């Protein structure tokens, strides 16, 4: 039941996942933002030529990351940020399974399936 020690540990663990996720992604977003003032959004901190896709395009990040393109660094941070809630729900699911709370394993699974559908299947 809520409020008892197992749940409190669960809650604290989950909150920690979120906080670490947000700190890492915010650091990446901020690094890209700061670098954009130095070399422009689609420049390169290494002075290399990089592709300049529309800023709504989050694909083909890797070659732009290798060239340390500010836009790509920030985009990686944005994607990491967006994924933190997924990690949180997945962690809840595992914690409920650990407590053998099958009703809430099923409910967490439903939430996770809906989230994955929204990310992958729905356009």
């Amino acid at each position, binding site marked *: 039941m809520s409020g008892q020690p197992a749940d409190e540990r669960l809650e604290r663990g989950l909150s920690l996942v979120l906080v670490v996720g947000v700190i890492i992604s915010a650091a990446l977003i901020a690094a890209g933002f700061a670098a954009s003032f130095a070399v422009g959004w689609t420049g390169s901190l290494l002075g290399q030529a990089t592709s300049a896709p529309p800023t709504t395009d989050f694909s083909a990040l890797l070659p732009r990351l290798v060239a340390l393109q500010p836009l790509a660094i920030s985009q990686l941070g*944005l994607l990491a940020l*967006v994924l933190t809630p997924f990690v949180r*729900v997945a962690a809840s699911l595992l914690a409920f399974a650990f407590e053998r709370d099958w009703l809430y394993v099923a409910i967490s699974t439903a939430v996770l399936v*809906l989230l994955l559908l929204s990310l992958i299947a729905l356009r």
Partner: protein
Amino acid sequence: MPITAGTDAALFVISLGAGLLGALGGVGGGLIIVPVLTVGMGFDIHLAAGASIVSVIATSSGAAVAYLREGWANIRVGMLLQVATVAGAIVGALVTSEVPTQLLLLILGAVLLLSGGMQLLRLSEEPGAGPVGGRDRWRLSGRYFSIRLQREVDYTPIAVVPGFVVMIVAGIISGLLGIGSGALKVLAMDGLMRLPMKVSSATSNFMIGVTAAASVGIYLARGYVDARLTVPVTLGILVGAVVGARLLPRLTNQHVRIIFIPVLLIIAIEVLLRGLGINV
């Protein structure tokens, strides 16, 4: 509106203000930044929603720091109701491109008014929690430490089904407008389900990030998340929210309301007028 190098810094500063105002007023930064970007700066409402929804994830997850210490959120209540908000958000994000901008603005204005009104009404510290010891089919009962009573208080939520239905609506609005819909979530949890206010606020906050994540996948696929706009907005709101959360304990509630309520009302009226096609 095209984004030039100068607007990057301006967007950051404006968003910082929105995050600060949101944190001090008890609403999300998204509810402030969407009208500022659309009505104030002329950005497309879907691009504003795309930037806002990412910032909503940042502030919701970031606020978990506070609850890490205090532990008021009820994870089971949050997870159960998330089925409703996530499903609603998916529907909202899928249909938002089909909804006329003016109707979106009217809905946004209504949510702003509701949020402002709720801030005024929430004067009582802890509205009575539901009856304890009743049937608890979903195993949602919990316990929290009441500062007013100086002891642990047990609670069991009631009206789970009506609460679930309101959560579907909250999810749809979140998906349509890129906002957290925290006011509607709290309305369902402390109004209908009779959860203690602190528990419903903390649980709502925990749900907001997951609800927002459901819209983001669809927004990304549709090109509503523009990094040039989203990066300064998200960073600004996050910094503003963190600073606001630090300032909050030093301000009494009355001070906060005097600053905040008129600002929220003015924004709401602007947005509603624009929704009605009247340019002021």
